[in-house]
């Protein structure tokens, strides 16, 4: 149902005429694609719609009032912070109201209690800058420095710095959520006052409703305020240098230093990461895909392909690197001690330190996820797995094997197994697999590969992160549950009985498979006849 004049007037009364529009030109500015995350894929073509109206609230109260108008008048709505997450964060149904939260960019730093408090319009890099000025730091997730901190934390929220600083759900403190019907839910200590210092309770810890493993993509309301835990950092300034595009943070090497090690094997990589975690040293420990090195070296996409085409299956198979970020949190002496421990560990595993630039280009403040699109134009991190440190390296090669069937149109990567690293001082291992393509190619196989990875994970019993709204719920739910999908749908029905908060998530991928003819032959699971149309 289109948004009527009466409903428009009611919404306009909430924010003022300056901050609402149903002009087709304004709405076109919020089209999902064809560029973006999952660039040009079937999901973007089949599932996304230009919004019927856009509204920009400033306060939690305004969000509540907007949502209540929507709920009363059966208007579907989608919360939208920066729009970077591509098709999944854009409307999936006609005439939806897109609630653009960029004006809610409040920021407050509590230096004494080590947290920041932000609105959904606040992105990571300013938070990191302000934290570092006050002796603290946060993880800028792989989503990038341009990501809304709230959206990233209720979705993914990790990076190589998670080796030390921990997983996202451990950093979410007091939080405000406008539930799908407009009711305000306050989590943690915000439930009792205005101090967001504490994240758990009272009663059941409801932060799982926000993110579970990797988020619900706006189908359970809108987070309007969140306190995020920060951790102590060292005091020296990380000085920005260079002119764009070649900018970097110059590192004070007595307190912050990256060292790249070449090690003899994958086993040596894992052993090194485990020992580094056990020794409780380092701010980050990671192994990245070989093609990221080509991205870093190339000045343009053509040069990337020059560099990358020199690699082959053998060079990729024999690429064993461990990148370690040392941070002298407390003193130069601590840094020196950590470096000696690190060198002992590397000596034991046969690691050799390589010359490493005394700068950080892509993790501490920038987190350059946008550059991932440079060489092909189409990109998605098709899956992430958090396993044990010894299990997670097996995940990437299984993907690489499956990917061969779909290459082309996927980028030739010579079997690169992707990215893996240590989380929480080696307590977990993390693996992420990334795929790239040219969106002008026939991309249907990319859609098929995506679902095929889910089947592969089920077969191999990998506990994948991309469940719920990321894959067909009726494919993954019975296999990971057996009733995980029923539980999720019960939660959805309880809090959003009218399904107005970003419909048809969490069943959007099920609907996509139904709607896309090139996906039909993939469907070997049961689903009800009454999926949303």
């Amino acid at each position, binding site marked *: 149902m289109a948004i009527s004049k009466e409903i428009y007037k009611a919404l306009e009364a909430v924010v003022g005429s300056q901050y609402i529009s149903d*002009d087709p*030109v*304004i709405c*076109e*500015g919020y*089209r999902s694609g064809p*560029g*973006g995350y999952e*660039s040009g894929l079937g999901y973007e073509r089949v599932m996304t719609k230009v919004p019927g109206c*856009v509204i*920009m609230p400033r306060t939690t109260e305004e969000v509540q009032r907007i949502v209540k108008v929507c709920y009363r008048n059966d208007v579907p709505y989608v919360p939208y912070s*920066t*729009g*970077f997450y*591509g098709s999944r964060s854009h409307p999936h149904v006609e005439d939806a109201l897109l609630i*653009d939260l960029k004006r809610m960019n409040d920021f407050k730093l509590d230096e004494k209690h080590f947290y920041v408090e932000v609105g959904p319009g*606040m*992105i990571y*890099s*300013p*938070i*990191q*800058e*302000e934290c570092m*000025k006050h002796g603290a730091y946060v993880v800028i997730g792989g989503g*990038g*420095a*341009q990501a809304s901190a709230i959206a990233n934390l209720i979705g993914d929220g990790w990076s190589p710095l998670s080796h030390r600083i921990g997983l996202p759900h451990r950093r979410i403190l007091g939080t405000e959520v406008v539930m799908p019907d407009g009711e305000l839910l306050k989590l943690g200590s915000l439930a009792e006052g205005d101090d967001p210092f504490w994240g758990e309770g009272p009663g059941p810890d409801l932060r799982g409703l926000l993110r579970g493993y990797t988020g619900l993509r706006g189908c359970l309301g809108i987070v309007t305020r969140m306190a995020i835990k920060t951790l102590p950092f060292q005091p020296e300034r990380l000085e920005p240098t*260079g*002119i*764009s*595009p*070649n*900018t*970097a943070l110059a590192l004070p090497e007595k307190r912050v230093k990256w060292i790249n090690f070449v090690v003899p094997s994958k086993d040596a990589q894992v052993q090194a990461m485990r020992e580094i975690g056990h020794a409780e040293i380092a701010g980050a420990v990671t192994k990245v895909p070989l093609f990221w090195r080509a991205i870093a070296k190339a000045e*343009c*996409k*053509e040069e990337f*392909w020059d560099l990358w085409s020199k690699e082959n299956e053998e060079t990729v198979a024999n690429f064993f690197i461990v990148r370690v970020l040392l941070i002298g949190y407390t003193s130069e002496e601590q840094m020196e001690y950590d470096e000696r421990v690190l060198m002992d560990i590397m000596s034991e595993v046969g690691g050799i330190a390589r010359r490493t630039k005394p700068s950080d280009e892509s993790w501490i*403040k920038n987190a350059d996820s*946008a*550059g991932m*699109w*440079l060489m*092909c*134009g189409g990109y998605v991190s098709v899956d992430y797995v958090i396993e044990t440190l010894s299990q997670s390296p097996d995940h990437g090669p299984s993907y690489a094997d499956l990917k061969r*069937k*779909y290459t*082309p*149109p996927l*980028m030739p990567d010579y079997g690169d197994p992707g990215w893996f690293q240590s989380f929480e001082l080696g307590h977990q291992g993390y693996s992420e697999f990334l795929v790239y393509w*040219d*969106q*002008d*190619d*026939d991309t*249907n*196989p990319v859609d*098929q*590969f995506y679902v095929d990875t889910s089947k592969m994970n089920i077969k191999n019993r990998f506990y994948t992160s991309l469940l719920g709204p990321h894959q067909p719920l009726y494919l993954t739910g019975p296999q990971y549950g057996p009733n995980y999908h029923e539980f999720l749908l019960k939660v959805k029905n309880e809090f959003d009985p009218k399904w107005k908060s970003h419909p048809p998530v969490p069943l959007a991928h099920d609907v996509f498979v139904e709607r896309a003819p090139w996906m039909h032959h993939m469907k070997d699971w049961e689903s009800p006849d009454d999926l949303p149309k």
Partner: protein
Amino acid sequence: MADPSPVRYYKPAAEFKLDITDVKNFVYDMSRCIKCKGCTWVDHTYMPGPKFMTRCPSAAKYEFDAYGAYGKMRIGHAMAEGRLGWNETALEVLYACTLCGACDVGCKRNLDLEVGLSLEALRVKAVQDGVGPLPAHKRIAESIAQKHNLYGAPSEKRTEWLPQGITPAQKAEVLYFAGCTASYVNREIAQSTAKILQAAGTAFMLMPDEWCCGNTVFSVGLFDEAKALAQRNIDQVRQTGVKTLLTSCAECYRMWKVDYPKVLNISTADLGFQVIHLVEYVDEKMKSGVLKMKKPLETRLTYHDSCGLARLSDPWTPYEGKRGWMGCVEPRLTRRRGNQEIYAKPRDILKAIPGVNLVEMPRTRENAFCCGAGRGVREAFPDFAEWAASHRLDEVKEIGAETLVSSCPWCKNNFAQAAKAGAADVQVLDISEVICASIEG
């Protein structure tokens, strides 16, 4: 398993040119935007904190995504494909933009898309479609056509700015192109420039009949009119036989160095003469010992990077090629990224002046926030222009600067007006005035 038959890597190469008269040349760029908003955020490495996070005046002022480059790319793509038509909002989205290049250098950090050229091509398309430019722009174009200057002023008064005691040469290796604003409105800039040239012992000439550079007509999409002006002005300069054309206006500088070659489909190197800004000239003379900054200027001073002398100033080279697999182009394209190292020169000059305490604003160099005056904005959207200047002056206040210096009369005027209206208690000067005052000491 995937059906192998339709799967291919090979994609027929699509021919394209960096030619803004056909928006279809930029459909690839407009369709590849991923909304990372690198066009809007300050380069994250330089991100100054929760204040002053963005560098796009349009996106900051109007806030809807449509007004950021990420929205304009979607709108432009839809228009190029015939899915969306013009309306009043579309014209505002397109023209309430200073084409300051912040989006372009931001994108070229991440994706190398031709955002700036796409925006210029969309303005040309608006004119081709009969909906652009806006009435205020048409009045400017009319003034230029009739009186050869922006202001509709008598052309015979154009050289009245010349100070006593300075007589331009009839023939010289250096030609000073004063531009409309320094000739008619901010004569102190032209006068200071002439005095600096004289102090350095550089004989200079003026154009026998100087006309407007055409910045506004080019910027609002009047391509044919801009091309005619470019051809006329270049022919005039070539006839003088000068080796160097010097400007003291960043907008004139950009036109001569970048946009004249662009509209005439030649390289900057093929102009037949060198185009330099006063800042480049003084930097060279200062470092070779010809000019000395003597008289102190006791002030806490900050420098505003005028867009035309900063991220928009890379030289132009025509390009025609093919785009194939993964969007790679052949032959290789040297992207214009606004990183040609011009940023240091004005700072080196200002730091050489005794007594100057040069302090940087949170957003500097390629991340600078445009003053808001240029490319047709001041004429059609004066409120927006004043808002942008006031917003920039907030940064001046933030760092406690007493003096704001730029290298462009457009910046000077816009800042001065905003300051006068109460945005900040700050002295606004052009760099030519500051240099002149110091060397005369």
